[in-house]
């Protein structure tokens, strides 16, 4: 093979390799704490930052101790509606579930099933009436009533021009007493991002 032909062969191999690399699907396992921002939209990192802040703030807020001191038992919380008032379709369940988990695992706050969860549970209880043994059957009307409801909202302010956007997120969570509507705890997390979209692709 002449030197010229070898050069052509090498060039063809490099081009073919480049094409093949472009076609292959690549999957890389990464740590859940690793920050990977792709589009600038709400992502797992935002959710994690919100849940970390809310967990820290809610468990040290003093409302649990005040309740304990007065009633000598753990307060019971039910998860209410977290309204998405932002410009993005955001799944609020991720950080709400984190907070719920922290409440339960702390042993200081009891959590009862939310309105969307209890339908299935009640259905199961009805089913037990017909199908479960007397010894294992669970009665109706023995649910634990909640003391507080967790409600909240996500708001955004977006300023955009040409290829640049500044996105501001504010997540507010509040625990409201079901007895008298008092707000016993409010948590807030603010996030701000400056996003510069590529001019060329």
């Amino acid at each position: 093979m002449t030197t010229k032909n070898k050069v052509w062969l090498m060039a063809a191999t490099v081009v073919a390799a480049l094409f093949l690399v472009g076609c292959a699907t690549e999957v890389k396992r990464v740590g859940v704490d690793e920050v990977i921002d792709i589009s600038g939209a709400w992502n797992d990192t935002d959710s994690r930052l919100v849940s970390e802040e809310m967990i820290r703030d809610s468990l040290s807020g003093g409302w649990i101790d005040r309740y304990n001191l007065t009633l000598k038992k753990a307060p019971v919380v039910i998860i209410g509606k977290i309204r998405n008032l932002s410009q993005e379709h955001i799944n609020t369940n991720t950080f709400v579930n984190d907070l719920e988990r922290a409440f339960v695992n702390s042993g200081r706050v009891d959590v009862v099933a939310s309105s969307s969860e209890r339908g299935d549970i009640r259905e199961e209880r009805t089913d037990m009436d017909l199908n479960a043994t007397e010894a294992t059957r669970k009665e109706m009307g023995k649910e634990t009533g909640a003391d507080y409801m967790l409600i909240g909202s996500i708001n955004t302010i977006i300023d955009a021009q040409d290829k640049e956007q500044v996105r501001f997120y504010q997540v507010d969570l509040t625990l409201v007493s079901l007895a008298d509507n008092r707000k016993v705890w409010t948590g807030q997390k603010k996030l701000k991002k400056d996003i510069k979209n590529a001019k060329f692709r």
Partner: protein
Amino acid sequence: MPLTQCPAAFGDRLRRLLAGVLVVLAVVVLPGCATYSIGVAKVELETSNRDLDGALKSLDELKLSGADQLLYHLNKATLLRLQGDYSASTRQFETAKSLIDKLNAISVTEQTGSVVVNDTMKAYEGTAIEQLLISAFEELNYLQSGKLDEAAVEARQFDIRQRLIVAKDPSAVYLSGAFVRYLNGMVYEEVGESDSARIDYQKALAGYQAQSAITGTGAPAALKADLERLENSRHSEATQKSPVHAKQAIRDEGEVVFILHDGLGPTLAENIVHIANPDLQHGTAIMSLAVPSLVQRPVPVARFELNAGAQSAASELVEDVNALARKNLEDRLPAITARAVARMVLKNAVAKNVKNRSGDNGGNLLLSIVTDVSAIVSERADTRNWSLLPGNILMARLSLPQGSHDLAVNYYDRAGNILATRQYAAVTVTAGRKVFVSDYLLVAH
């Protein structure tokens, strides 16, 4: 290094390469164009005949990908919406929006391709009208699946999206998204954000007024009534004069909002001009210039009537897609033509160069013919568009007492003949809420 200063062998190789590229592109691009137009016509026919399963299958068979990927998502989203699969339709619209955001960045390769070969080399990113209407249909998807908060997210998102779309062409006042703003107002009212609703109704009214010179129609009367109601209520709150009986009446009644996708939106045809080159030795034998032209399709329904027992409401035109698309193409045509002229000059220059260097040698003569042919066949207009958009959108709103209602809708043509009647049994109307119902009639059978 300019081509004329290249060593002869390298220059020759480069010319052959350019001609080869043109031929290959012509071979690759042209069959694609033909398949697309034929395939989409089949999808449109099946949709018009209400064979949505068939249309979805035909659309999938088209295998629209690469530069045409957006068209796949937009058309699929429309078909799924017409089929009533609102979640799947929304997923397609969301993919389309992400793709548009991605395509917002300039591709040097595609831009070069559009000047060297034709405009179909560029990835289709949708016209401004199409991009605005994605929000309307996605919002309707959410409204018709009872996801009010999600619809409100879309409404909020539209503010930014429309601003960025209009920023590219600030003089285009008809890009107001008047219909979307009107929908946004209704959505905001549904989620209890009356201030936002009032602002969007105001913007919708201003938008309809701004585009009235193009569409020949003004703002819908129902929109004006909404705006007046909210402004009066704001005034009453400020002056502590609450019209209790009026509020009570609103609380006891709900409203059916009926939306019709009327006819198919415009399609684009190719206008191609071939000019014989007077100087055959210096350029292509025939110079070609191709630009798109708009072909409006008949809109079957002139008006419709929404009936529930003795009560009825007449439709109003809320979006004249045909008129807006025509104006939009007229505005884009100078730039499209400029690119076509640039292509013609470039292809002529390549041909001239090839011919100047070819002698009587048979191989060079063949190369010269190939260059001529490829220059002609590669010149194509970009006739891609979101072809399943409706020609226009009609809306009727009927206030009804809370409860279950049987609805009947009569579609009339321009002569006043009934084209079709649709029945909707047991539509649940909730006091103080709106229920959204939609249908489509694409051709008069």
